[in-house]
């Protein structure tokens, strides 16, 4: 039986892993390759690297990070942040990424999803989205969560999957950083509409939250960052808990 994946997310700024808490107060927590090795050994099922480097001059640093990590760690790598074109995606895939996530660029130019899916296959096209409730609608926000696009998430996920997105990475800005649980209502609503895997993101604070995202939110995979980085929770313990509660996970 297919297991549910536990995915640590590493934010990378100019080649170093950092984590923004509620998109603020960034503090440095380490070297990407070392962290990847650590997470592989702790039982992570996959790693997400998000490039948050502001200056486009330094974007190629990320290609080197991906090359280094994929030479040392033999689990799936998803890379996102600042991917704007088919060429950007190709560079990441050639460097050793297995999947590439696109966010703002997909919203600005939905055809990019289709082009990338045709060229590289849907399985490596992840559409990532930052979602926030606004006037009782879940809206898509872009530019690191600063810009309200007024696009309803439920319309967007249908469009994105029709264009060939192979997976959705859904971050709730309402729950992110609060450690009070994932936005399971949002996740469930998306799951009802699409037939591609969904990665839940934003809000994990305790083990039960992961269980709820999988059971109530129907998430296929669950992502967290600071919780793992600051060793507030180990992936091993989390998997043990989930397995005890009847959730299929890959044993380590």
């Amino acid at each position, binding site marked *: 039986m*297919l297991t549910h994946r536990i995915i640590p997310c590493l934010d990378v700024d100019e080649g170093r892993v950092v984590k923004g808490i509620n998109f603020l107060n960034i503090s440095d927590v380490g070297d990407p390759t070392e962290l990847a090795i650590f997470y592989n050994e702790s039982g992570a099922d996959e790693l997400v690297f998000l490039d948050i480097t502001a200056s486009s001059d330094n974007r190629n640093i990320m290609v080197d990070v991906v090359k280094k990590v994929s030479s040392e760690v033999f689990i799936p790598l998803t890379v996102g942040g600042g991917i704007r074109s088919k060429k950007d995606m190709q560079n990441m895939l050639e460097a050793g990424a297995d999947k590439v996530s696109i966010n703002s660029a997909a919203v600005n130019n939905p055809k990019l999803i289709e082009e990338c899916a045709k060229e590289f296959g849907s*399985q490596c096209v992840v559409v990532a989205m930052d979602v926030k409730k606004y006037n009782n609608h879940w809206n898509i926000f872009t530019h690191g969560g600063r810009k309200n696009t007024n696009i309803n998430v439920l319309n967007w996920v249908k469009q994105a999957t029709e264009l060939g997105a192979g997976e959705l990475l859904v971050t709730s800005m309402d729950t992110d950083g609060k450690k009070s649980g994932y936005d399971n209502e949002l996740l469930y609503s998306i799951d009802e509409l699409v037939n591609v895997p969904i990665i839940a993101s934003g809000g994990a604070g305790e083990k039960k939250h992961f269980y709820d995202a999988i059971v109530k939110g129907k998430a296929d995979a669950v992502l967290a960052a600071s919780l793992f980085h600051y060793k507030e929770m180990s992936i091993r313990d989390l998997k043990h808990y989930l397995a005890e509660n009847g959730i299929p996970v890959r044993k380590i």
Partner: protein
Amino acid sequence: MYITIEIYKIDKTLNFRELKIIIIDTGAANVHSVNKAVIKAGADPYISKNKSDLRNSDAVILPGVGSSNSVMKSLNNLNLTEEIKLYARSGKPLLCICVGMQVLFDRSDEGDTNCLGIISGKVKKFSENMMNENGRKMKIPHIGWNKIKIIQKKHNILNDIPNNSYFYFVHSFFCAPKENNNIIATTDYGIEVCAIVGNNNIIGTQFHPEKSGDIGISIYKNFINMVK
């Protein structure tokens, strides 16, 4: 005499780095990751798209990412299609991964593609609206870590690989071999899916050994050990 042969064999397996292992570069695949995984397994592979390299190699790996039609198009453009068929008949080990495994078959529903026809059978798309016994939606693509059920315990590619080991899968199409005795292992995704196909020297894995952690590296080690 017997002892001499034994020593020769041991010596040969210890010198993985002297073997000429070719990873075929179709342009679209994850050649980088496969290369690093084979190095991790102890060999020193070459990445190539040349016919002559293929012909002079001890073992060949055909990685696959993308779609069957793009991989076949690329092999046709590189004039490698006939060369791979010829190589498959040579008896030397051939390992095909994911879409690489799918193009081993006669035909794929993905883009209605004529494939290599090295193993008989075809490649079909998962049907929509599949559920497992717990009512969980079986989504497409099948992405993630899934257990394999070993059918042919004695196959060399499975040396020291326990039943129910987890491997990393990413695919929307699945292989349906015509001959049951070509199925080495399966995985459960609403239906029983062929996870490893084999016919003598030819092996295909639907999962990505290069993305399946230490157990995946063991698959490459076993493959290298198949080089006589």
